[in-house]
């Protein structure tokens, strides 16, 4: 490490750059600190960075799209080259999205990359969150960081939904109709809430489109970016967590490689990898071919309409909940859509927000935790996490049951009942199996150590301390 730092200081370019900045801003101490910031070493610590870089790609491609997309519900007729749509009445928003795909240079590449990036953004946040949960990285002093991350996930889901909806193709319209019904289903205030957001009964006023647009291209990205900055600031302020891998790694001392010259090139490489994967997908694999869906007109629909994957769990929940309304006389207090569409995600996110608090209560550990647990080290946490994951995952799968029926012929109704049973059985099974598995891993480790020691003693060597 010492040698690495020397070479960093010898680097003329860096030195010149730091001096340039320092003379004009006095930030040399900060830059020096940043260059010497130590990154602990584990592949799973990079998942959050994947999300970060995907966000960068999202912003970049998104800006390009705003140059051509017109968020207007004004009515127009398509007169372009694409035969199946010629003469169709449609909104300006939809037409501009079709034109942007067909006529604008690199328009389709950018649109597809943007959409793939949205899918991957949420996927990488989920993976990152799983890593944070199963290693206990959410514990003090990083609980605040965890809350910020979770809030970004909420915003990312909303942001994705708005992007899907803005285009005003057939799927957009159907998705908005579902969103409208779910909001309407909130007891007492639902109808007023929906009117407040939509401005008028579905499909709403023209202003609704500008509201969605401003939220999608300005409010939510700014919110996410701000939270992201805070998130990263907190990560750096309290340093990365690390696994207990050697004797040098302690609660007080971070072991890893410094930003420069060790870590920065790796991170840059990861950025290029993310960009490569997303642009390759954007160029080679079709996503949301809106010209095939056609424009949305109220009361029209297509079979098999689905939300993007990250809202699939909500569609699954809407399908699994039995036909149950709470009514008082003629008044429907809680319509069916509330259970799956609103209560279920509220419950899941409430549980996720409570995780640090629940963990403190359960373990009685109120101190600083800078070292990570391996999943097996905390069998109960790991098992409960696996159960929650299994629960949401089963419901997520149920969201695709119609496509499974069409593709594989497994009866839809049979699937629903299987999922309704699995919703209760699988989390329990995951809990028991995961806990057993963790304990078995611990046990085998303990036995391995005892055997090593015994073998060493049998060879007549002194019991050795672990060397690293």
């Amino acid at each position: 490490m010492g040698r690495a730092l020397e070479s960093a200081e010898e680097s003329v370019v860096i030195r010149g750059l730091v001096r340039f900045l320092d003379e004009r801003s006095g930030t040399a101490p900060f830059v020096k600190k940043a260059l010497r910031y130590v990154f602990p070493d584990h592949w799973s610590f990079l998942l959050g960075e994947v999300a970060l870089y995907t966000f960068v790609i999202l912003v970049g491609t998104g800006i390009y799209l705003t140059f051509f997309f017109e968020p207007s519900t004004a009515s127009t007729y398509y007169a372009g080259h694409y035969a199946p749509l010629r003469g169709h009445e449609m909104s300006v928003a939809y037409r501009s999205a079709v034109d942007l795909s067909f006529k604008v240079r690199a328009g389709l590449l950018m649109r597809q990359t943007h959409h793939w990036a949205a899918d991957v953004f949420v996927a990488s946040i989920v993976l990152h969150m799983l890593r944070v949960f199963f290693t206990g990285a959410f514990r003090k002093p990083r609980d605040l960081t965890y809350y910020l991350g979770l809030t970004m996930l909420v915003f990312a889901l909303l942001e994705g939904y708005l992007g899907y909806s803005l285009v005003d193709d057939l799927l957009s319209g159907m998705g908005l109709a579902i969103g409208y019904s779910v909001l309407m289903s909130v007891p007492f205030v639902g109808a007023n809430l929906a009117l407040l957001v939509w401005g008028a009964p579905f499909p709403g006023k023209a202003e609704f489109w500008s509201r969605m647009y401003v939220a999608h291209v300005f409010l939510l990205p700014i919110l996410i970016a701000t939270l992201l900055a805070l998130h990263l600031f907190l990560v750096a302020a309290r340093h990365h967590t690390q696994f207990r891998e050697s004797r040098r790694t302690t609660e007080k001392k971070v072991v890893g490689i410094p930003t420069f010259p060790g870590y920065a090139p790796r991170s840059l490489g990861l950025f290029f990898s993310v960009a490569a994967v997303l642009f390759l997908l954007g160029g080679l694999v079709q996503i949301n071919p809106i010209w095939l869906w056609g424009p949305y007109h109220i009361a029209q629909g297509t079979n098999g309409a689905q939300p993007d994957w990250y809202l699939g769990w909500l569609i699954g929940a809407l399908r699994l909940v039995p036909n149950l309304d709470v009514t008082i006389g003629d008044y429907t207090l809680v319509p069916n859509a509330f259970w799956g569409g609103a209560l279920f995600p509220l419950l899941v996110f409430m549980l996720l927000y409570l995780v640090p608090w629940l963990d403190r209560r359960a373990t009685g550990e109120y101190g600083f935790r800078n070292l990570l647990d391996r999943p097996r080290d905390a069998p109960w946490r790991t098992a409960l996490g696996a159960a929650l994951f299994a629960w949401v995952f089963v419901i997520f799968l149920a969201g695709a049951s119609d496509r499974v029926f069409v593709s594989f012929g497994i009866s839809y109704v049979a699937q629903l009942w299987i999922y309704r049973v699995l919703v209760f059985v699988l989390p329990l099974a995951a809990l028991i199996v995961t806990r057993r598995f963790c304990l078995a891993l611990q046990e085998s480790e303990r036995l391995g150590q005892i055997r090593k020691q015994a073998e060493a003693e049998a060879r007549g060597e002194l019991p050795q301390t672990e060397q690293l």
Partner: protein
Amino acid sequence: MRRLLLLALALALPSAASAQPGLGVKAKTGQGLYAEHCLSCHGVDGSGVTSASHPRGVLDVRGLGPPLKDVGALAADFYLTTGYMPLEDPHEQPRHTKSPFDKREIAALVAYVASFGKGPPVPTPHPERGDVSVGLSLFTEHCAGCHQVVAEGGYVTNAVAPPLHEATPVQIAEAVRVGPYLMPRFEKSQISDAQLDSIIAYVQWAKHPDDRGGWSIGRIGPVPEGLVAWLIAAVALVGCCVVIGRRVRQ
């Protein structure tokens, strides 16, 4: 027992009915095939087997098979060329399969079924006169709710609305007028023959639509897209993390 009786009847029938006047050569061949493959459910001369003692079958029709008196060549041609009939189990939804009959046999059966009454003939659609754009509108309005907007098929209550990849123009024209299984029947007042030509033109187009943007992963939207996002993109990126994050031991 009843089935056996019917079979026995079926075997005895050709000689008894061959005296029936007015049947052409084709229809006579069809009569034999009918007796062998269709009669046990659709009855003698297409009179149907609808007695109440039989369990409910397709669409709650009591008995084994509906009467075929005035269904005409149109319906017979549709059910036979799609392989929907003969149906092994009358409780099952008929699926698009390869017909056990060859072209000549189908033509013979169609001629025979047509001889039962005054049903419509096999239609002759003209998709080349249709307009793909009008077709998309009509298809979205009348068909996409079940068959999916690019005709990839989908789930409807207790049945499959089949994908239309293999449907020929004639079969589409027939299906619209017949309304097989759960599908509604559309009269000419609802969908005119000219409109039907446009719908067929669109369905033909949708078999090989404009696949700009690359690999078309099914044209059914987010489910396969989610699979690609996880199984290709997420896996590739986790792979990148593992490679890039690999410990460098000094």
